[in-house]
């Protein structure tokens, strides 16, 4: 870059810094000016909590009161994993898989940790109905277990992409959508659970979501293009 381009870039950077600073200042000023909201959403949530089927307010909001947002969110996750898997090169990943490290210390640690992580994931799923926890946290722990297995060299990549793996990816969205449309079919609104079944339906949806989120996050990790193993030529 010659000198004039460099000077212009430096001034552009200063301009961006000044603009960001001004933006932050104006945002803080607005924050201090904002009145406290009149409608108390938290009070409405606590009032409707006994009818939601779970005891924890965040889970109730996620899986019952705002379940449409969660349905769309798992749809977005699916889109991301489709985009990631669309460019996944199976033969290259198979070639690179051979070269992955298999550290013996990591191996024994993983053998001890992964069963515990599965247990923790199941507990988080169950605990989400009455204390902090739920499908997302459980799915994240599952994904971490999958990533650990991959890093320890114990699990190859998606070779081949069989029906079970595809089903695991889709299970969360499909079951969630099926419950929602089932409510439509039986005469209720979309995603409106019947009162006495709300708890069980939420647990079913959360279990499917946990499996899907765990597998989607692991896929997002594994679908990354493998480093090209170059032949060692005379360079």
């Amino acid at each position, binding site marked *: 870059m010659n000198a004039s381009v460099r000077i212009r870039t430096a001034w552009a950077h200063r301009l961006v810094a000044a603009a960001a600073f001004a933006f932050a200042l104006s945002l803080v000023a607005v924050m201090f000016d904002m009145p406290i909201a009149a409608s108390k959403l938290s009070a409405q949530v606590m009032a409707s909590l006994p009818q939601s089927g779970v005891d924890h307010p*965040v*889970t109730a909001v996620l899986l019952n009161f705002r379940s449409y947002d969660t349905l769309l969110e798992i749809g977005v996750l699916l889109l991301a994993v489709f985009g990631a898997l669309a460019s996944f090169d199976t033969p290259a990943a198979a070639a690179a898989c051979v*070269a*992955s*490290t*298999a550290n013996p210390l990591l191996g024994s640690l993983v053998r001890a940790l992964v069963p515990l992580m599965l247990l923790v994931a199941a507990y*988080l799923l169950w605990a989400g109905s009455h204390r*902090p*926890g*739920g499908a*997302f*946290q459980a799915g*994240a*722990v599952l*994904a*971490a277990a999958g*990533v650990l297995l991959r890093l320890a060299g114990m699990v190859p990549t998606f070779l081949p992409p069989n029906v079970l793996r595809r089903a695991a990816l889709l299970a969360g969205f499909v079951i969630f959508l099926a419950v929602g449309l089932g409510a439509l079919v039986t005469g209720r609104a979309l995603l409106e659970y019947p009162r006495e079944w709300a708890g069980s339906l939420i647990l079913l949806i959360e279990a499917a979501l946990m499996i899907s989120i765990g597998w989607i*996050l692991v896929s*997002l*990790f594994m679908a*990354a*293009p*493998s*480093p*090209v*193993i*170059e*032949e*060692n030529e005379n360079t």
Partner: protein
Amino acid sequence: MADWIFDALLSGTLVWVAWRALAATDLFKSVVIFIAFGLLMSLAWVRLSAPDIALAEAAIGAGLTGVLLLDAIGHLRNRNRPERTEE
């Protein structure tokens, strides 16, 4: 009063760690400081009485994002290396 001071300190540290993560020139340093930023964010969520978010941020925001970033850095370095026959 004491938790006021703690909140102010935590917020200040959060902003400072974010600045260090974004201003670092070395990629690896940026990612490591970013993982630390994620864990501090988890603390901030606990202070905001949001334990669900704290769990998710620690596992997904710091853990999984950190792994993805470190893997990407490894990929950016590996291309130029000759093939290793034994590992």
